């Protein structure tokens, strides 16, 4: 018979190194670990990899990556994904790491907000400026319906097939999702507080066109001001600039007001924190907790620069040091990739 304990062990993701954060530094750490035959699993709160580069500036050129006079942030992430592919990293995306505990045998068990558990020998925190979290509008009871009709990120658009959905927001992502979901939802409304979408004229034109064709209901000069339901969200109240209210019966409400990084749960993990960053030992970027490292924007030490280049260097030193937790009986010998090649898993 399968006991609860054996079930938990079997359903747990097993890896050598669990990396919190799939930004450029977390991704490159997979490469450095892979050269030393250590497997990695990455967790990120965002639905996509790339951290700040994918979320904030995918189309901007970066000029200080060695060997690339100029590279678009999005292309750097694509290249990193290609570079680490031989080492078959696995991912949990769209989930936030909330906590970790250590077993008697030294293994570290990481748990996400969705209950996913990962067992590893080493924990690497590559969490950047923190977890990208949604900006929430000030609407009473919003939190009561989170996960019960209200969400702030769209992980799987198919979830909304045939549903009555209200989006709120006026930025790029609200417009892009409105266009995309207009093909999927049963009934789609987009609520925006002003009359125009000033920053993204092309997507705005498409949205107005879709509204004209009756594919979406465009509600301008208005805000969602209340939500209600019985357990699950049932309706939202929309208030226009004349302070008139309309109630709309819906299955889902998705406020899309952008994401901003928050240190979040990391502050509670017993790590030495200074000015919202994790204090590390510059020899190997280890923290005050054994087998727990911090690399990239999240760490601090005298002279720290929050640059991608510096994070890459930290990843290399971290991997050399972490080796002893993954292969305690083996001696590490340092080899160039030119000599040894990249030996895929």
């Amino acid at each position: 018979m399968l006991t609860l304990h054996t079930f938990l062990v079997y359903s747990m993701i097993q890896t050598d190194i669990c990396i919190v954060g799939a930004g450029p530094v977390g991704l490159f750490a997979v490469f450095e670990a892979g050269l030393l035959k250590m497997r990695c699993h990455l967790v990120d709160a965002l639905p996509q990899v790339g951290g700040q580069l994918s979320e904030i500036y995918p189309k901007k050129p970066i000029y200080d990556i060695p060997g690339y006079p100029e590279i678009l942030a999005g292309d750097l992430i694509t290249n990193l994904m290609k570079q680490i592919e031989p080492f078959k990293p696995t991912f949990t995306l769209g989930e936030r790491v909330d906590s970790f505990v250590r077993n008697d045998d030294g293994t570290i068990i990481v748990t996400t907000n969705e209950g996913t558990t990962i067992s590893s020998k080493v924990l690497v925190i590559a969490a950047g400026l923190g977890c990208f979290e949604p900006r929430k509008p000030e609407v009473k009871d919003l939190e009561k319906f989170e996960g019960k009709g209200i969400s702030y990120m769209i992980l799987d658009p198919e979830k909304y097939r045939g549903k009555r959905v209200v989006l709120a927001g006026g930025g790029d992502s609200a417009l892009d999702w409105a266009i995309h979901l207009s093909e999927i939802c049963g009934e789609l409304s987009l609520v925006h507080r002003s009359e125009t979408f000033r920053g993204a004229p092309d997507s705005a034109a498409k949205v107005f066109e879709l509204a004209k064709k009756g594919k979406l209901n465009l509600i301008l000069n208005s805000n969602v001001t209340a939500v209600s339901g019985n357990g699950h969200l049932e309706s939202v109240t929309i208030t226009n600039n004349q302070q008139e209210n309309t109630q709309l019966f819906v299955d889902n409400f998705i406020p899309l007001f952008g994401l901003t990084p928050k240190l979040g749960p990391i502050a509670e993990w017993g790590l030495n924190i200074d000015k919202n960053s994790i204090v590390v030992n510059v020899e190997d970027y280890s923290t005050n907790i054994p087998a727990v490292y911090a690399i990239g924007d999240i760490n601090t030490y005298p002279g720290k620069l929050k640059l991608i280049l510096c994070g890459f260097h930290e990843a290399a030193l971290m991997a050399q040091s972490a080796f002893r937790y993954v292969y305690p009986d083996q001696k590490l010998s340092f080899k160039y990739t030119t000599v040894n090649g990249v030996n895929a898993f």
Partner: protein
Amino acid sequence: MKDLIEVTIIDKDGTSNTLQIPTGISLSLMEVLKGEGYPILATCGGMALCATCHVQVIKGYEKLHQPEDQEWAMLDTLPNYTPQSRLSCQLKIDETMDGMEFRVMGEDNV
């Protein structure tokens, strides 16, 4: 030309402070706020890409130049937008700012 201007900043907790800022420094209001230790993240370093440097102009909004497209795009994403909202990284310190008043609306990462 004035070398020193006075700008009043209202913090999130309501405390008001008048800063004396030299005009010849070619800094943005965001850089001054960060330098003074106000709790804004300014993740993107002033590229109008993160909106964590959001301020509300309490006095003197009409003296400022109009936002460019990228600034509008970010302002449009904010749930706490007001008609007097601006991104402080897009506001260069110069004499026209003398006597103006701003409320900090942006976020830190805590």
